[in-house]
């Protein structure tokens, strides 16, 4: 293990002081004089024709400055990959909550009053709420009859030609390796099941918000709680036909993302209202609106068929995934494809067949959430492994060990495995939970059980990052990046790497971000990519800056720049201890002789990417995979159906941990979110209407639902990646996938009942246990 001076150390987060003192600014902590507030009138129907809108009464209301309807928005469809949605619905609404009109007024109260004065006449249409039903050829409801005419924003292979047999399917993807039929013929045991994952919400504590205004140059500006300012700028530019450079997008600290806050909805509507009024406009979603009008994870059905030989070797796996995207495609085009990466990331499977479909329904909008399709796939795979182990009378840990991908193995989509700590992680969690000891005896209605599962998450390759590094004369190294500080700690990670490159204290590094006027291009913080991609760009930017510094220093010292190095703001020459010069002395002096005023390093990194072939195979489609495992001990109340997590451990490989404590933060956060998603959280809907869009009845875990102290552990497996920055990989998403299957495996261990559908809410568990008990009683 290489020793670094800053990298690998748990230095306090660079944003922590600002955050504990309340000084860290989020979007709504800024404001504008004469700012207007926008509110959205929303469809009460899951599917309806909009016959008539009359906003004349609302326009009379004092303080109302503009009202926009579908007819007032640019006559073009918008979207992330597939352009399938009008900014405000025209003619047809396809989910409960779809915008039909937007009011901008002097206050939020006036805007809300105005909504009550807009009369809309609808003709309700039949609706479909089940993804599998929507996928059928004979589905009576076709949400987008014009789908064959829709255009894609880029030429990714996952936008298929229209399929007349599946009129609601907007996206498909497939992977093929080996000979699946032969594989099943070789198998001694075939296990086939259906698994269902529900859609759950990111529940970022900061609600979605966007402020738009025109600046003094007449440029359209947006500051928002979101990710991906560069992509947003392009989308705004395209939507409103404004040149790129006439749009400025900004992002301050962001109060959580977890895969959300990437669609441009709020931002575009705020822009629309600013263009209509010429005034600053804030569109701040209520918590309720966040639940039904942003997007949650995709409700996903997974059919899986596994073939194993008698000694527990996986020989064939066939999977079919159906992802419900709600009424529009948004992120789901990516999620459809990327669930495949999660499906192949842990085990060696020589014969592999995988198909996934993105389907329109009239449900709440769905898309990416921490794992992009991986969690639903791994929820199925990791329960299958336990079922197979039981059938073969093998220990579930042993069965997994036998099939884990090893260094150098080619996985089922053709990529060579490198930096895999899965086996190590599995051993660590098994050890912590005392896997070989029986769980504590049950007491009364509480049944105790243990479960284990592996997890993985890839990082997509086809992206670019840029970083600027500016050397200031007063011992400040400024890092400018273009990704998103959503709480994951990217500023600290980049500061540590920059300090390491320049061999200076981390306190000398200042990190700025989030403004297309000054930050360099980056894709976004997504796909757990910032540490790797932005990190590698940062290292190149530092090298570039040092090259500039050394060039000047070499002249002044009369040496070869290749012999120079720097530490603590002094440049020195190897082998010539007397040849030293402080960096501050390299800047131009005050004698009006323009020598050097700026050292600005620029670094760019694009991950090698080879698009998949028609069988979903590629040598380089993911940058890497991160792996890990969870082991858990739960208690199930057979009277009430309550499930409580008593002890849990997560162990993960992230290459070199740049900041180990921050890696623990991710692992513990994944545990909290995982427990919420698979036990407590569930949308309750009635014909597409969300009945619990609030933190009261949509139950995310509080302090008492997640173990603390000695009952929880976050473990780091050190498996450096040869290509990563200091050997590091990303971690943000991997930490989620294996919580749910570990809990479900523990549930089986506790009760003897295997459940295939998330979440384990008390009433569902109670119902399932009662059904099973009845079936058992002759």
């Amino acid at each position, binding site marked *: 293990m290489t020793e670094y001076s800053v990298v690998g150390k748990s230095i306090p987060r660079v944003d922590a002081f600002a955050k*504990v003192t309340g000084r860290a600014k989020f979007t709504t902590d800024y404001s504008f004089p004469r700012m207007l507030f926008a509110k959205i009138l929303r469809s009460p129907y899951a599917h309806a024709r909009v016959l008539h809108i009359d906003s004349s009464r609302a326009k009379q209301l004092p303080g109302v400055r503009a009202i926009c309807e579908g007819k007032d928005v640019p006559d073009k469809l918008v979207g992330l990959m597939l352009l399938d949605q009008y900014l405000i619905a025209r003619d047809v609404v396809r989910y409960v909550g779809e915008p039909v009109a937007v009011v901008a007024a002097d206050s939020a109260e006036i805007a809300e009053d105005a909504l009550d004065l807009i009369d809309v006449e609808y003709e309700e249409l039949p609706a479909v709420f089940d993804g599998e039903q929507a996928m059928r050829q004979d589905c009576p409801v076709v949400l987008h009859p014009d789908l064959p005419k829709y255009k894609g924003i880029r030429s990714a292979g996952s936008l298929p030609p229209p399929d007349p047999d599946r009129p609601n399917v907007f996206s498909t993807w497939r992977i093929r390796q080996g000979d699946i039929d032969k594989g099943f013929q070789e198998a001694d045991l075939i296990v086939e099941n259906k698994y269902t994952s529900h859609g759950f919400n990111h529940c970022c*504590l900061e609600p979605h918000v966007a402020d738009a205004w025109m600046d003094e140059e007449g440029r359209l500006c947006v500051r928002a709680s979101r990710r991906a300012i560069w992509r947003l700028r392009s989308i705004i530019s395209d939507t409103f036909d404004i040149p790129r450079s006439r749009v400025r997008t900004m992002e301050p600290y962001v109060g959580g993302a977890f895969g959300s806050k990437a669609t441009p909805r709020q931002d575009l509507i705020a822009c629309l209202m600013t263009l209509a009024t010429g005034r600053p406009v804030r569109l701040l979603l209520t918590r309720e609106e966040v639940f039904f009008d942003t997007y949650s994870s995709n409700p996903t059905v997974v059919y899986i068929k596994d073939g194993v030989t008698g000694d527990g070797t996986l020989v064939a796996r066939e999977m079919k995934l159906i992802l419900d995207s709600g009424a529009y495609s948004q992120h789901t085009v990516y999620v459809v494809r990327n669930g495949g990466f999660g499906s192949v990331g842990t085990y060696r499977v020589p014969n592999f067949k995988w198909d996934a479909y993105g389907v329109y329904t009239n449900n709440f909008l769905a898309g990416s959430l921490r794992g992009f399709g991986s969690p639903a796939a791994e929820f199925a795979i990791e329960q299958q492994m336990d079922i197979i182990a039981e059938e073969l009378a093998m220990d579930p840990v042993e069965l997994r060990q036998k099939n884990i991908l090893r260094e150098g193995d080619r996985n089922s989509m053709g990529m060579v495995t490198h930096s895999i700590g899965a086996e190590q992680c599995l051993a660590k969690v098994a050890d912590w939970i005392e896997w070989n000891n029986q769980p504590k005896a049950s007491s009364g209605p509480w049944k105790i059980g243990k479960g284990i599962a592996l997890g993985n998450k890839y990082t997509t390759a086809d992206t670019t990052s840029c970083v600027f590094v500016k050397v200031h004369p007063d011992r400040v190294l400024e890092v400018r990046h273009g990704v998103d500080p959503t709480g994951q700690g990217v500023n600290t990670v980049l500061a540590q790497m920059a300090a390491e490159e320049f061999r200076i204290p981390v306190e000398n590094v200042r990190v700025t971000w989030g403004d297309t006027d000054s930050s360099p291009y980056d894709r976004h913080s997504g796909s757990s990519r910032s540490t790797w991609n932005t990190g590698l760009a940062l290292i190149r930017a530092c090298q570039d800056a040092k090259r500039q510094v050394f060039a000047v220093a070499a002249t002044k010292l009369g040496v070869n720049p290749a012999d120079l190095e720097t530490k603590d703001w002094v440049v020195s020459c190897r082998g010539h201890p007397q040849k030293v010069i402080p960096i501050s002395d390299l800047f131009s002096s005050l004698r009006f002789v323009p020598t050097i005023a700026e050292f600005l390093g620029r670094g760019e990194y694009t991950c090698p990417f080879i698009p998949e072939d028609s069988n979903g195979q590629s040598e380089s489609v993911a940058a890497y995979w991160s792996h890990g495992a969870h082991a858990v001990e739960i208690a199930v109340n057979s009277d009430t159906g309550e499930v409580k997590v008593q002890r849990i451990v997560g162990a993960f490989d992230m290459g070199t941990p740049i900041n180990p404590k921050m890696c623990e933060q991710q692992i*513990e956060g994944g545990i909290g979110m995982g427990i919420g998603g698979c036990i407590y959280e569930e949308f309750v809907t009635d014909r597409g209407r969300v009945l619990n869009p609030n*933190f009261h009845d949509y139950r995310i875990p509080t*302090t008492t639902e997640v173990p*603390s102290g000695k009952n929880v552990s976050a473990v780091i497996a050190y498996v450096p990646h040869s290509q990563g920055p200091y050997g590091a990989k990303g971690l943000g998403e991997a930490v989620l996938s294996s919580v749910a299957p570990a809990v479900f495996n523990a549930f089986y261990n506790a009760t003897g009942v295997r459940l295939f559908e998330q979440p384990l809410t008390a009433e569902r568990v109670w119902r399932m246990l009662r059904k099973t008990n009845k079936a058992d009683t002759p």
Partner: protein
Amino acid sequence: MKQMIELNVNGVKEEVLIEPWWTLAEVLRDQLNLMSVKVGCNKGDCGSCTVLVNGEAVKSCLLLAAKANGKDIVTVEGLSMDDKLDPLQEAFIEHFAVQCGFCTPGMILCAKALLNENPDPTEQEIREALRGNLCRCTGYVKIIEAVLAAKGRLNIRSSR
């Protein structure tokens, strides 16, 4: 009809002209620019807007500002006068109890109210006391650790 109220905010008397329906959260943020008061749900469920009113934790989105007239209010800005951090703030930094930071001010103040009342809470008591403050980033593990650590520091300070 607007009315004048007087709040003693972080030790400073503030006279504010308010609308009767304004909540304390709105007044602290929009009138007094105390932006540490975060509004995550506006319905009293998430705890991000927690402030201390006469030493007790209160969700400021559900308290009419008029009802706080004449009372002592503490926000996180008031815990760290002259850059001297409260032991809770120090512990939140050192124990990595902060991620996105949106719940942090409310969480710290809720913990502050607990330690005011019970200087030596157990881990379980901390869990119970903080359950009205939601956090989505941390899984609460390091937050609870930080409160346990801060309690030690407070006790050392007070025994000196």
